[in-house]
Protein backbone atom coordinates (compact mmCIF):
# COMPACT_ATOMS: atom_id res chain seq x y z
CA UNK A 1 0.00 0.00 0.00
CA UNK A 2 1.44 3.35 -1.05
CA UNK A 3 0.36 6.62 0.51
CA UNK A 4 -1.50 8.97 -1.86
CA UNK A 5 0.29 11.97 -3.34
CA UNK A 6 -1.90 14.49 -1.52
CA UNK A 7 -1.24 12.91 1.83
CA UNK A 8 2.50 12.78 1.16
CA UNK A 9 2.46 16.48 0.30
CA UNK A 10 0.40 17.36 3.38
CA UNK A 11 2.64 15.40 5.72
CA UNK A 12 5.95 16.65 4.30
CA UNK A 13 6.29 19.60 6.69
CA UNK A 14 5.57 17.71 9.95
CA UNK A 15 7.82 14.85 8.79
CA UNK A 16 10.75 17.16 8.12
CA UNK A 17 10.25 19.11 11.34
CA UNK A 18 10.01 15.87 13.36
CA UNK A 19 13.22 14.48 11.88
CA UNK A 20 15.07 17.75 12.51
CA UNK A 21 13.77 17.75 16.08
CA UNK A 22 15.93 14.63 16.58
CA UNK A 23 19.02 16.50 15.37
CA UNK A 24 20.46 18.42 12.44
CA UNK A 25 20.31 16.61 9.13
CA UNK A 26 20.70 17.01 5.37
CA UNK A 27 18.37 16.24 2.46
CA UNK A 28 19.53 12.75 1.58
CA UNK A 29 19.52 11.59 5.21
CA UNK A 30 16.03 13.06 5.80
CA UNK A 31 14.59 11.12 2.87
CA UNK A 32 16.36 7.96 3.94
CA UNK A 33 14.92 8.32 7.43
CA UNK A 34 11.37 8.74 6.08
CA UNK A 35 11.81 5.65 3.91
CA UNK A 36 13.24 3.61 6.78
CA UNK A 37 10.62 4.59 9.35
CA UNK A 38 7.71 4.05 6.95
CA UNK A 39 9.14 0.74 5.82
CA UNK A 40 9.56 2.15 2.31
CA UNK A 41 5.85 2.80 1.91
CA UNK A 42 6.10 6.59 1.90
CA UNK A 43 7.60 7.27 -1.50
CA UNK A 44 8.78 10.77 -2.20
CA UNK A 45 10.17 12.02 -5.45
CA UNK A 46 13.49 12.81 -3.79
CA UNK A 47 14.04 16.18 -5.44
CA UNK A 48 10.73 17.56 -4.19
CA UNK A 49 12.06 17.63 -0.65
CA UNK A 50 14.39 20.53 -1.38
CA UNK A 51 11.83 23.16 -2.39
CA UNK A 52 9.94 22.26 0.81
CA UNK A 53 13.11 22.66 2.89
CA UNK A 54 13.81 26.02 1.29
CA UNK A 55 10.26 27.17 1.92
CA UNK A 56 10.52 26.20 5.59
CA UNK A 57 13.80 28.09 5.76
CA UNK A 58 12.16 31.17 4.26
CA UNK A 59 9.37 30.88 6.80
CA UNK A 60 11.99 30.93 9.54
CA UNK A 61 11.15 27.47 10.89
CA UNK A 62 14.55 25.99 10.07
CA UNK A 63 18.01 27.32 9.20
CA UNK A 64 20.82 25.90 7.09
CA UNK A 65 24.60 25.76 7.26
CA UNK A 66 27.25 24.13 5.12
CA UNK A 67 29.54 21.52 6.62
CA UNK A 68 32.16 19.27 5.11
CA UNK A 69 31.42 15.61 5.73
CA UNK A 70 33.99 12.97 6.67
CA UNK A 71 34.15 11.97 2.99
CA UNK A 72 35.18 15.51 2.13
CA UNK A 73 31.92 16.49 0.44
CA UNK A 74 30.28 19.77 1.37
CA UNK A 75 26.74 19.26 2.59
CA UNK A 76 23.96 21.65 3.44
CA UNK A 77 22.63 20.79 6.88
CA UNK A 78 19.35 21.99 8.33
CA UNK A 79 18.63 22.85 11.95
CA UNK A 80 15.29 23.34 13.66
CA UNK A 81 14.72 26.87 14.99
CA UNK A 82 12.65 27.84 18.00
CA UNK A 83 9.85 28.91 15.66
CA UNK A 84 10.03 25.46 14.06
CA UNK A 85 9.65 23.69 17.39
CA UNK A 86 6.48 25.69 18.00
CA UNK A 87 5.18 24.87 14.51
CA UNK A 88 5.91 21.18 15.09
CA UNK A 89 3.85 21.17 18.30
CA UNK A 90 0.98 22.78 16.38
CA UNK A 91 1.26 20.19 13.58
CA UNK A 92 1.35 17.40 16.14
CA UNK A 93 -1.87 18.44 17.85
CA UNK A 94 -3.62 18.84 14.50
CA UNK A 95 -2.54 15.41 13.25
CA UNK A 96 -3.46 13.82 16.58
CA UNK A 97 -6.90 15.41 16.32
CA UNK A 98 -7.40 13.96 12.83
CA UNK A 99 -6.03 10.61 13.97
CA UNK A 100 -8.31 10.43 17.05
CA UNK A 101 -11.36 11.49 15.08
CA UNK A 102 -10.83 8.82 12.46
CA UNK A 103 -10.06 6.21 15.06
CA UNK A 104 -13.28 6.89 16.92
CA UNK A 105 -15.29 6.74 13.71
CA UNK A 106 -13.66 3.50 12.65
CA UNK A 107 -13.89 1.77 15.99
CA UNK A 108 -16.58 -0.88 15.93
CA UNK A 109 -19.22 0.34 18.34
CA UNK A 110 -20.63 -2.36 20.58
CA UNK A 111 -24.38 -2.73 20.16
CA UNK A 112 -25.92 -2.60 23.63
CA UNK A 113 -29.61 -2.50 22.83
Amino acid at each position, binding site marked *: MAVSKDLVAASATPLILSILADGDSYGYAIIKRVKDVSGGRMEWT*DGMLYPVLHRLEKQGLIESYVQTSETGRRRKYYRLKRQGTKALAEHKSQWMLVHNTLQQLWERKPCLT
Partner: protein
Amino acid sequence: MSDLEQRIEQWRAELAQSQAVAASDINELESHLRDDIAHLQEAGLSEAEAFLVAQHRLGDTSRLAREFRKVNGDRRPLEHLSWMALGVLVYLLVGYVATGLSQGSVLVANLLGVQGYPLGVVALTARAMTFMGLMALLWTVLSSGKCRRPTGFSDRRTARVLVAGQLLSRLAAVPVLGVAEWGRIAYVSNFGRLAWYAVGPILLAVAAIALRTHALRSRRAWADGPSE
Protein backbone atom coordinates in the same frame (compact mmCIF):
# COMPACT_ATOMS: atom_id res chain seq x y z
CA MET B 1 36.57 13.59 -17.15
CA SER B 2 35.04 10.22 -16.36
CA ASP B 3 31.79 9.04 -17.83
CA LEU B 4 29.93 9.64 -14.55
CA GLU B 5 31.32 13.16 -14.17
CA GLN B 6 30.24 13.90 -17.72
CA ARG B 7 26.71 12.65 -17.06
CA ILE B 8 26.48 14.73 -13.88
CA GLU B 9 27.79 17.79 -15.70
CA GLN B 10 25.12 17.28 -18.37
CA TRP B 11 22.42 16.86 -15.73
CA ARG B 12 23.59 20.07 -14.03
CA ALA B 13 23.44 21.92 -17.33
CA GLU B 14 19.86 20.71 -17.86
CA LEU B 15 18.83 22.05 -14.44
CA ALA B 16 20.69 25.29 -15.06
CA GLN B 17 18.49 25.93 -18.10
CA SER B 18 15.71 26.83 -15.74
CA GLN B 19 15.25 30.41 -14.69
CA ALA B 20 14.49 29.36 -11.13
CA VAL B 21 17.13 26.93 -9.91
CA ALA B 22 20.09 28.71 -8.30
CA ALA B 23 23.64 27.40 -8.39
CA SER B 24 23.45 26.61 -4.68
CA ASP B 25 20.25 24.57 -5.28
CA ILE B 26 21.97 22.59 -8.01
CA ASN B 27 24.96 21.94 -5.74
CA GLU B 28 22.62 20.64 -3.06
CA LEU B 29 20.80 18.38 -5.52
CA GLU B 30 24.12 17.15 -6.91
CA SER B 31 25.26 16.23 -3.41
CA HIS B 32 22.05 14.19 -3.04
CA LEU B 33 22.58 12.56 -6.43
CA ARG B 34 26.14 11.56 -5.52
CA ASP B 35 25.04 10.17 -2.15
CA ASP B 36 22.40 8.05 -3.85
CA ILE B 37 24.78 6.87 -6.57
CA ALA B 38 27.33 5.80 -3.94
CA HIS B 39 24.59 4.01 -1.98
CA LEU B 40 23.30 2.20 -5.08
CA GLN B 41 26.82 1.19 -6.11
CA GLU B 42 27.35 -0.33 -2.68
CA ALA B 43 24.20 -2.35 -3.35
CA GLY B 44 25.86 -3.75 -6.46
CA LEU B 45 24.69 -1.54 -9.31
CA SER B 46 27.13 -0.40 -11.98
CA GLU B 47 28.06 3.25 -12.19
CA ALA B 48 25.82 3.89 -15.18
CA GLU B 49 22.86 2.04 -13.64
CA ALA B 50 23.30 3.84 -10.32
CA PHE B 51 23.28 7.20 -12.09
CA LEU B 52 20.08 6.38 -13.98
CA VAL B 53 18.23 5.18 -10.90
CA ALA B 54 19.40 8.10 -8.74
CA GLN B 55 18.48 10.59 -11.45
CA HIS B 56 15.04 9.03 -11.79
CA ARG B 57 14.47 9.10 -8.03
CA LEU B 58 15.47 12.73 -7.83
CA GLY B 59 12.79 13.52 -10.37
CA ASP B 60 12.35 14.99 -13.80
CA THR B 61 14.45 18.16 -14.15
CA SER B 62 11.64 20.29 -15.57
CA ARG B 63 9.31 19.29 -12.72
CA LEU B 64 12.03 20.04 -10.20
CA ALA B 65 12.55 23.43 -11.78
CA ARG B 66 8.81 24.16 -11.51
CA GLU B 67 8.83 23.34 -7.80
CA PHE B 68 11.89 25.50 -7.21
CA ARG B 69 10.31 28.34 -9.12
CA LYS B 70 7.42 28.38 -6.63
CA VAL B 71 9.92 28.98 -3.82
CA ASN B 72 12.66 31.00 -5.51
CA GLY B 73 10.87 33.05 -8.11
CA ASP B 74 12.85 33.83 -11.20
CA ARG B 75 16.36 34.52 -10.02
CA ARG B 76 18.72 33.79 -12.84
CA PRO B 77 18.97 37.34 -14.25
CA LEU B 78 20.28 38.52 -10.90
CA GLU B 79 22.81 35.72 -10.80
CA HIS B 80 23.89 36.65 -14.31
CA LEU B 81 24.37 40.20 -13.16
CA SER B 82 26.47 39.26 -10.16
CA TRP B 83 28.75 37.12 -12.34
CA MET B 84 29.04 39.93 -14.88
CA ALA B 85 30.04 42.34 -12.14
CA LEU B 86 32.60 39.84 -10.86
CA GLY B 87 34.02 39.47 -14.39
CA VAL B 88 34.41 43.24 -14.77
CA LEU B 89 36.12 43.43 -11.40
CA VAL B 90 38.57 40.66 -12.24
CA TYR B 91 39.35 42.33 -15.56
CA LEU B 92 40.01 45.67 -13.86
CA LEU B 93 42.15 43.97 -11.24
CA VAL B 94 44.28 42.27 -13.92
CA GLY B 95 44.68 45.64 -15.64
CA TYR B 96 45.75 47.38 -12.44
CA VAL B 97 48.25 44.69 -11.48
CA ALA B 98 49.74 44.73 -15.00
CA THR B 99 50.08 48.52 -14.90
CA GLY B 100 51.62 48.45 -11.44
CA LEU B 101 54.16 45.76 -12.35
CA SER B 102 55.16 47.46 -15.62
CA GLN B 103 55.62 50.80 -13.90
CA GLY B 104 57.66 49.11 -11.19
CA SER B 105 59.90 47.46 -13.77
CA VAL B 106 60.39 50.82 -15.57
CA LEU B 107 61.45 52.32 -12.26
CA VAL B 108 63.90 49.50 -11.59
CA ALA B 109 65.28 49.71 -15.15
CA ASN B 110 65.70 53.47 -14.76
CA LEU B 111 67.55 53.02 -11.47
CA LEU B 112 69.82 50.50 -13.22
CA GLY B 113 70.69 53.19 -15.76
CA VAL B 114 68.39 52.35 -18.69
CA GLN B 115 67.11 55.50 -20.36
CA GLY B 116 65.43 56.82 -23.50
CA TYR B 117 64.38 54.43 -26.26
CA PRO B 118 65.42 51.21 -24.44
CA LEU B 119 63.37 52.32 -21.43
CA GLY B 120 60.32 52.52 -23.70
CA VAL B 121 60.98 48.97 -24.86
CA VAL B 122 61.26 47.80 -21.24
CA ALA B 123 57.99 49.52 -20.33
CA LEU B 124 56.10 48.06 -23.27
CA THR B 125 57.52 44.56 -22.84
CA ALA B 126 56.86 44.51 -19.11
CA ARG B 127 53.27 45.66 -19.62
CA ALA B 128 52.56 43.16 -22.40
CA MET B 129 54.22 40.29 -20.54
CA THR B 130 52.45 40.85 -17.23
CA PHE B 131 49.07 41.32 -18.88
CA MET B 132 49.50 38.21 -20.99
CA GLY B 133 50.84 36.27 -18.02
CA LEU B 134 47.88 37.13 -15.83
CA MET B 135 45.40 36.46 -18.64
CA ALA B 136 47.04 33.10 -19.33
CA LEU B 137 46.77 32.28 -15.62
CA LEU B 138 43.10 33.23 -15.62
CA TRP B 139 42.53 31.16 -18.73
CA THR B 140 44.19 28.12 -17.16
CA VAL B 141 42.02 28.42 -14.06
CA LEU B 142 38.84 28.81 -16.14
CA SER B 143 39.61 25.91 -18.49
CA SER B 144 40.87 23.53 -15.80
CA GLY B 145 37.30 22.87 -14.70
CA LYS B 146 38.31 23.35 -11.07
CA CYS B 147 36.30 26.54 -11.14
CA ARG B 148 32.64 25.51 -10.84
CA ARG B 149 30.77 26.97 -13.79
CA PRO B 150 28.15 29.39 -12.50
CA THR B 151 24.55 28.70 -13.38
CA GLY B 152 23.52 30.32 -16.61
CA PHE B 153 27.07 31.00 -17.73
CA SER B 154 26.64 28.25 -20.25
CA ASP B 155 29.08 29.37 -22.92
CA ARG B 156 32.66 29.23 -21.76
CA ARG B 157 33.69 29.67 -25.38
CA THR B 158 32.63 33.33 -25.26
CA ALA B 159 35.01 33.96 -22.39
CA ARG B 160 37.83 32.18 -24.20
CA VAL B 161 37.29 34.22 -27.38
CA LEU B 162 37.38 37.44 -25.35
CA VAL B 163 40.60 36.50 -23.59
CA ALA B 164 42.20 35.31 -26.84
CA GLY B 165 41.17 38.57 -28.53
CA GLN B 166 42.84 40.59 -25.80
CA LEU B 167 46.06 38.60 -26.02
CA LEU B 168 46.24 38.66 -29.82
CA SER B 169 45.52 42.37 -30.10
CA ARG B 170 48.28 43.14 -27.61
CA LEU B 171 50.71 40.79 -29.35
CA ALA B 172 49.92 42.32 -32.72
CA ALA B 173 50.22 45.91 -31.51
CA VAL B 174 53.93 45.68 -30.67
CA PRO B 175 55.39 44.72 -34.08
CA VAL B 176 52.76 46.62 -36.09
CA LEU B 177 52.91 49.94 -34.27
CA GLY B 178 56.43 49.98 -32.93
CA VAL B 179 57.52 51.69 -29.76
CA ALA B 180 57.64 55.28 -31.09
CA GLU B 181 54.19 55.08 -32.62
CA TRP B 182 52.90 53.62 -29.34
CA GLY B 183 54.11 56.75 -27.56
CA ARG B 184 52.41 59.01 -30.09
CA ILE B 185 49.05 57.33 -29.69
CA ALA B 186 49.40 57.25 -25.91
CA TYR B 187 47.27 60.27 -25.28
CA VAL B 188 44.57 59.03 -27.67
CA SER B 189 44.45 55.69 -25.85
CA ASN B 190 44.47 57.43 -22.50
CA PHE B 191 41.59 59.58 -23.65
CA GLY B 192 39.78 56.39 -24.66
CA ARG B 193 40.46 54.88 -21.27
CA LEU B 194 39.10 57.98 -19.56
CA ALA B 195 35.96 57.71 -21.70
CA TRP B 196 35.60 54.04 -20.74
CA TYR B 197 35.89 54.81 -17.05
CA ALA B 198 33.22 57.50 -17.43
CA VAL B 199 30.85 55.58 -19.72
CA GLY B 200 31.49 52.06 -18.40
CA PRO B 201 29.76 52.49 -15.05
CA ILE B 202 26.75 54.14 -16.74
CA LEU B 203 26.47 51.22 -19.17
CA LEU B 204 26.78 48.76 -16.29
CA ALA B 205 24.11 50.61 -14.30
CA VAL B 206 21.73 50.59 -17.30
CA ALA B 207 22.31 46.86 -17.75
CA ALA B 208 21.73 46.31 -14.02
CA ILE B 209 18.42 48.18 -14.04
CA ALA B 210 17.25 46.40 -17.21
CA LEU B 211 18.05 42.97 -15.73
CA ARG B 212 16.43 43.80 -12.40
CA THR B 213 13.25 44.99 -14.14
CA HIS B 214 13.18 41.81 -16.19
CA ALA B 215 13.62 39.66 -13.10
CA LEU B 216 10.84 41.43 -11.24
CA ARG B 217 8.48 41.24 -14.22
CA SER B 218 8.95 37.50 -14.68
CA ARG B 219 8.54 36.93 -10.95
CA ARG B 220 5.25 38.85 -11.05
CA ALA B 221 4.16 36.85 -14.08
CA TRP B 222 4.69 33.66 -12.07
CA ALA B 223 2.80 35.02 -9.11
CA ASP B 224 -0.15 35.93 -11.34
CA GLY B 225 -0.15 32.76 -13.39
CA PRO B 226 -1.96 29.58 -12.40
CA SER B 227 0.12 27.54 -9.98
CA GLU B 228 -0.19 24.57 -12.36
